[in-house]
């Protein structure tokens, strides 16, 4: 019996082998979305726990890595939803030059905050496409959706973000 079959039968040794093989990939994927190593580790453990609990639903001829990554993505989206900042940031007059590094840092924080206030699914698509520059088909596979849907999410994220930043007087340089 091969490794994936043994895993679906609940053999803990087979699961341990899979954990050691895929934990790095799952962690790497999650940390790109949540941007915090501690949180990413917790979510990786949670993902692997859910993978084990859902083992009966996995087909042994399927792609274990892609399946685990999809579970990880859903967990990361749930995490972003739970930790979405509630308050908006204060307004500032538009078009103010900001050469001071401290002010620039503050601007970056405000952009982060505006980004984190986007709906979680838009955040994930935009983060992976714009910041991480990952291919759309890879993002679509992890989100369990089409490439068209990912492109639409990125477009919406950009529109909302641009409007919010403009309203707050922040112009990306």
């Amino acid at each position, binding site marked *: 019996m091969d490794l994936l079959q043994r895993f679906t039968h609940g053999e803990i040794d087979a699961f341990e082998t899979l954990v050691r093989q895929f934990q790095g990939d799952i962690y790497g994927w999650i940390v790109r979305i949540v941007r915090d190593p501690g949180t990413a580790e917790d979510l990786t453990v949670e993902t692997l726990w859910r993978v084990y609990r859902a083992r009966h639903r996995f087909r042994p001829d399927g792609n274990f890595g892609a399946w685990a990554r999809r579970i990880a993505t859903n967990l990361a989206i749930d995490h972003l939803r739970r930790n979405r900042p509630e308050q908006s940031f204060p307004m500032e007059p538009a078009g103010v030059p900001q050469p001071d590094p401290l002010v620039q840092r503050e601007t970056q924080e405000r952009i982060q905050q505006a980004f984190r206030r986007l709906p979680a699914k838009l955040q994930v698509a935009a983060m992976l496409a*714009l910041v991480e520059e990952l291919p759309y088909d890879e993002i679509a596979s992890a989100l369990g959706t089409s490439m068209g849907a990912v492109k639409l999410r990125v477009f919406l994220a950009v529109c909302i973000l641009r409007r919010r930043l403009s309203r707050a007087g922040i112009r990306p340089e």
Partner: protein
Amino acid sequence: MTEPDDRQLRDALKQSFPPVKTELRRDLWSDVLRRLDYHPIRVPWYDWALVGLSAAMLLAFPRLFLVFAYHL
């Protein structure tokens, strides 16, 4: 939205979210096991020592089996 606008926003996002290290710092298997609450049966070393000693005694003094049988 124009292409330069898009690039500006992308650059601003990249500056706001600097690259993260994607390498895992430690093995998470023990954490996963704890999460699963899976406890493999572990025999402590002194139990193995006791079994070994008993076996050696039985081999050396077969008649001790009767004493064991009596106490069991």
